[in-house]
């Protein structure tokens, strides 16, 4: 039983992290039908912003050297600016394209950013020690849980509540939901398209920056592909949850995280290395059974 609880804690911590990434992807998809693969590179760049660009394997800290509140703000700011820049330069001119074209364009943006990091920071993984105090396990109800997992769950809970309040209570949030429901109609009724879409990217940047910080504390390494796996899993999480539905995105994130950890723990030994294949297989199965995902929103214009 204790073992099972331990596994569940791992599962929920991973699920929280994926839910954050999935929410960012889902939010942007909601307002402009773009599956933003570059979300992974937002995460990577946020993490790299902590250090001075250099070839060294243990680089000097840049934003990472600031006091913690400033460091957090700095990373978030960098990622938000980056998200806004990609929206302005790459995605805005393509706004009327079909989702498949947008998906290709986000691949291009991602490829661009990845090689930009390689150009500035070189391609080798680097180690970085930030917030290591958080990795020591703490005792919760007889379970030994790494502090960072508790932080991850807490941060996710707070952000989820904040996001819900924002979407339900503020004028901007309501406009965003209207735009996600029916973009054309919302525009006709006076919702400013550019502002709503920019806002979606701001939030996706905030979520991305948060994930970079959580990831970097967890792993202590910088790698130009560090954002790739989270974004792939989160991407499929939004698909499973139902594209365009935020509840679905969060739910999908948790589902993918939990099923991934459970498969890791309970698959027969020989099959464990193929865990990811089972998770991706699950995506195809869900798309076949429910092409629109688990939670279908009214505005699912395309069969997804």
């Amino acid at each position: 039983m204790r073992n099972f609880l331990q596994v569940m804690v791992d599962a929920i911590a991973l699920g929280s992290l994926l839910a954050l990434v999935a929410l960012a992807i889902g939010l942007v998809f909601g307002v402009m039908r773009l599956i933003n693969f570059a979300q992974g590179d937002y995460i990577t760049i946020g993490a790299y912003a902590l250090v001075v660009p250099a070839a060294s394997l243990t680089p000097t800290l840049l934003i990472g050297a600031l006091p913690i509140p400033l460091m957090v703000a700095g990373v978030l700011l960098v990622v938000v600016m980056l998200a806004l820049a990609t929206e302005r330069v790459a995605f805005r001119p393509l706004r009327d394209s079909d989702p498949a074209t947008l998906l290709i364009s986000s691949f291009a943006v991602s490829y661009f950013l990845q090689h930009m990091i390689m150009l500035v920071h070189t391609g080798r993984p680097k180690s970085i020690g930030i917030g290591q105090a958080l990795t020591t396990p703490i005792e919760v109800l007889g379970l030994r849980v790494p502090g960072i997992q508790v932080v991850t769950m807490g941060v996710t809970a707070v952000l989820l509540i904040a996001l819900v309040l924002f979407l339900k209570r503020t004028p901007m949030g309501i406009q965003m939901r209207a735009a996600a429901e029916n973009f054309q109609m919302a525009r006709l009724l006076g919702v400013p398209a550019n502002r709503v879409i920019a806002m979606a990217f701001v939030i996706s940047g905030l979520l991305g920056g948060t994930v970079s910080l959580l990831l970097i504390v967890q792993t202590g390494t910088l790698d130009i592909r560090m954002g790739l796996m989270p974004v792939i899993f989160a991407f499929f999480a939004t698909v499973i949850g139902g594209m365009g539905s935020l509840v679905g995105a969060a739910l999908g994130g948790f589902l993918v995280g939990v099923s991934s950890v459970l498969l890791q723990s309970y698959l027969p030994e020989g099959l464990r290395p193929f865990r990811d294949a089972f998770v991706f297989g699950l995506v195809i199965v869900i798309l076949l059974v429910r092409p629109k995902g688990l939670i279908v929103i009214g505005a699912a214009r395309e069969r997804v």
Partner: protein
Amino acid sequence: MHAGKGIAILERVWPVLVLVVPLMAVVVLADLYGSVMFQRTVTDALIKIVLVVGLYIFIGNSGIVSFGHIGFAGIAAYFATWMTCCAMMKPITMTGLPDFLRLETYSLWSTALVSVAIAGVAALVIGLVLMRLSGLAASISTLAALFIFHAVYANWDSVTMGRASIVGVPTYVTVWVALGGAVLAIAVAWLYQISSYGLATRAARDDEVAAQASGISLYWNRLIAFVLSGMVVGLGGVLMVHFQGTISVNAFYLNLTFITLAMLVVGGMRSLAGAVVGVVVLTSVADVFRRLEAGVDLGAMRLSTPVGTQEMFLAALMLLILVFRKDGLMGRRELRLPRFPGTGQGREAP
């Protein structure tokens, strides 16, 4: 009347000839005068043509963007490796292979045929499931299929040696062999395109409802396109592994997917000529950047662009094409036989 018949035939094969003949000319020049480096660049480009034309067969005709086809190239390439590679090491390093692969080595011809067939079978199995979906859902599931391929092959240590490279695959792919592959791929794509199956698939691409109302099965026509393109991409994978002599699972993952897709997008997703033109253009651009990265002498100074600029330029170019010329350099046109004024020139793909 004879002249008219001749012209009619010429008209049918012209779009293939106009692509193949310049390629042949380049190959002849490369073979006679080119440096080893240039020959390798040309060979690599010809193999990319096989891959991109393979992609085009499905993407261009069905209108569904597939992110998963490089997986079929990987499947075929690994099978070719198992059949031909390193007779001494294989029994020790790849213990999980069945005896007929672990202990035997096969001739290159039969290897190519069998590997392409294996890619076709894989495409058939995956297509049987995925072709029920359409639009974005189909694209997403092809991406999931690529990840499944990668997760399986990267971890199936007993037959693929995990993420490590397998070395010692026989290299027989010269510039002429690659040319043969490219010509074959282009011919297959063209024959498919002018066949009734190709026509039906494109009809479904342009208007699903009207096509279905005319009695066209979306599912079966797309499945045929998917399997055929899986096989051609598989051929590309076989050529690739027998050109490079090594194979690793990361060679058949997101980077190659992105580059081949970029070539198709730049050339024009809905034109066979576009697939070829895209490869030629992007290979030339990449070659220029490779030289720049190596450094250019300007008097006393030696200028070189940092590593990574080539990829950034490629991505930027692709975005520009998507924004300003969505149908790529070729638009939706094929290179047709010039006609007398006022007839048929520059019309839509057949």
